[in-house]
């Protein structure tokens, strides 16, 4: 009952707030005001129910929140820790990925390739944001570095995709370290602002330094990847890049997984939890932070090269802040520090908008709304990170995984 009254108040308040935009319509030709009272009614009823739902879910979260969250972690954990289930899951996903390009058209393949790219980008950013806890809003800068490395080297010297792939990654790594140095002392909001600025600097340089990057008109006719100079049709090339991305994704998942359960991964987590204690326990802050920045940037650089090769045309408009924001949302939505989380996050963020083209106008609205709802109900992300457990046979203290 109390909820009803509160929701009613909210509804009335919203009706009042939205009154000028939804009710009054001025017809400037005939100089009359049209009063659309029915809109106000819809607004009121809509808000009333949304408010009721919101309250219901909030209350449910408080009531069973702790328990159900623990249960949900347990489900992920059972899957992750049971090698049988995990293996079956991985094999079935890989099989689907392998069959996928032969049963669908090139449009679907393209979308899937993009989704896979975002998985890899997300996992790269996950090292920086999720594991090391350094909020990086300029991640797309490294992506741009990789893409432009390939585009320029290909344009001027005709270097092939395979040659530039490591060069692009290396360039991004160098830029990662370059950015890492000045921001070593920063944390949280300050770090976010500096990285955001860094991202914009890279984009603005690319946009304005015409002699170097050909400015806003971009670079066209970049070579697609080839195998031993074998010429491929467009469809073949699409499928090839798709499989390339599958390999990349598998490798990245494998690498990040090993990384986060290693000495370095643990140091990142500790750095995220408490910087001073972490240093006092003998973890070098400089080295650990730089490593996170450099490794995160490396993945972005690799993906940049692939991106340039896939689209065959790049210009600075592909590397705006929005791109950074999307990659960051992939990580936050999926669950910071969690590999399956990032994968699911990327699939949702990329595939959903593609298949819901009908709602494309409301894309950003839904985006924002989803983020707010997530932060209230599941701040740890869709699939939260869980910590590996060691099992000991306490008699002799030997441990097995």
């Amino acid at each position, binding site marked *: 009952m109390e909820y009803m009254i509160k929701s009613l108040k909210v509804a009335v308040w919203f009706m009042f707030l939205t009154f000028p935009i939804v009710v009054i319509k001025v017809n400037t030709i005939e100089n009359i005001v049209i009063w659309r009272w029915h809109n106000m009614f819809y607004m009121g009823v809509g808000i009333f129910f949304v408010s009721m739902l919101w309250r219901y879910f909030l209350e449910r979260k408080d009531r069973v929140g702790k328990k159900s969250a623990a249960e949900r972690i347990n489900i992920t954990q059972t899957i992750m820790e049971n090698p049988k289930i995990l293996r079956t899951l991985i094999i079935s996903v890989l099989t689907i990925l392998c069959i996928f390009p032969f049963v669908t058209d090139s449009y679907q393949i393209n979308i899937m390739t993009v989704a896979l790219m975002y998985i890899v980008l997300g996992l790269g950013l996950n090292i920086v944001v999720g594991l090391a806890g350094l909020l990086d809003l300029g991640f797309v800068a490294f992506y741009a570095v990789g893409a432009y490395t390939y585009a320029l080297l290909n344009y001027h010297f005709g270097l092939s995709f395979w040659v530039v792939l490591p060069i692009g990654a290396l360039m991004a790594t160098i830029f990662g370290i370059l950015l890492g140095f000045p921001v070593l002392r920063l944390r949280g909001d300050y770090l976010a602002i500096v990285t955001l600025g860094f991202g914009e600097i890279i984009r603005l340089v690319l946009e304005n330094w015409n002699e170097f990057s050909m400015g806003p008109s971009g670079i066209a006719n970049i070579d697609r990847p080839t195998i031993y100079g074998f010429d491929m049709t467009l469809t073949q090339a699409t499928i090839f890049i798709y499989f390339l991305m599958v390999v990349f994704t598998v490798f990245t998942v494998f*690498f990040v997984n090993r990384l986060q359960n290693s*000495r370095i991964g643990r140091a990142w987590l*500790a750095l995220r939890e*408490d910087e001073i*204690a972490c240093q006092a326990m003998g973890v070098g802050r400089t080295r650990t932070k730089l490593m996170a920045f450099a490794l995160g940037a490396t993945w972005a650089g690799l993906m940049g090269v692939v991106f340039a090769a896939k689209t065959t045309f790049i210009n600075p408009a592909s590397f705006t802040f929005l791109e950074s924001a999307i990659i960051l949302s992939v990580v936050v939505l999926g669950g910071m520090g969690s590999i399956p989380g990032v994968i699911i996050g990327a699939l949702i963020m990329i595939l959903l908008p593609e298949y819901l083209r009908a709602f494309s106008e409301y894309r950003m609205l839904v985006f924002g709304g989803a983020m707010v709802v997530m932060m209230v109900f599941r701040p740890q992300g869709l699939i939260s990170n869980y*910590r590996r457990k060691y099992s000991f046979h306490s008699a002799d203290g030997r441990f097995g995984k």
Partner: protein
Amino acid sequence: MEGLVSSMEHILDVKDLTMDFGGLRAVDSVDLYVDKKEIVALIGPNGAGKTTFFNCITGIYNPSKGDIKAITHSGAAARLNGLKPNRVTERGLARTFQNIRLFQNMTVLENVMIGKHCRMKAKVLGALLRDRRTRAEELKAANESYEILEKIGLAKFSDEIASNLPYGAQRKLEIARAMATEPSLLLLDEPAAGMNPQETRELTDLIRQIRDNEDISILLIEHDMKLVMNLSERIYVMDHGQKIAEGTPVDIRNNPEVIKAYLGEDIDA
């Protein structure tokens, strides 16, 4: 007294340590030493500069003046001034914090394993390939960490997330984590703060055990006088950044300067 003993025998030897924050002198030319297998306490009223003194030794602050010398992990003598905290820890000084600073979202075992970080070598490539050396190193670190937990009495919590531990266990975990760095000197900043008498007694035994069994010297800051008097072989007293007394527990108990610092100048006041 200090002149009689050769400075090489002190595991930690601090001379004339001064720390200024702008115009404020938080620590004013303090001398202090700790011998091998000794338990030394540093006491004093709130704001006397004890924690600042700790922060200077462990590299969190860079002292304005003075010398900090220690026998390092490898047995050689080294000057610690201006070293970063992680370098100081590598050289064999480990500390705990007054306000608990655990890695809240990591498991108890992982907390301890972080302490092993500076004694491990695995690099990115090792993590990727997970070769035999890396695996052996991980296994060794996990086993040794678990052994430390068993000694401290936290083994049953090893898979628990650190923030879920009861308060007393969290304090112990801080000690366990510091011990994992294989220190020759353990610096404890108010280890008994907020503990009940029962827990304090257990802690006293634990600290003594660490000293006896692990060959670790201990320097501790503490307000619990019972613990300090029971445990320590020598006591330093600080007030307003200055060292006002040093000596055995009996000396300190009867020292008029110390009584004045704690209770004030006038008996009436």
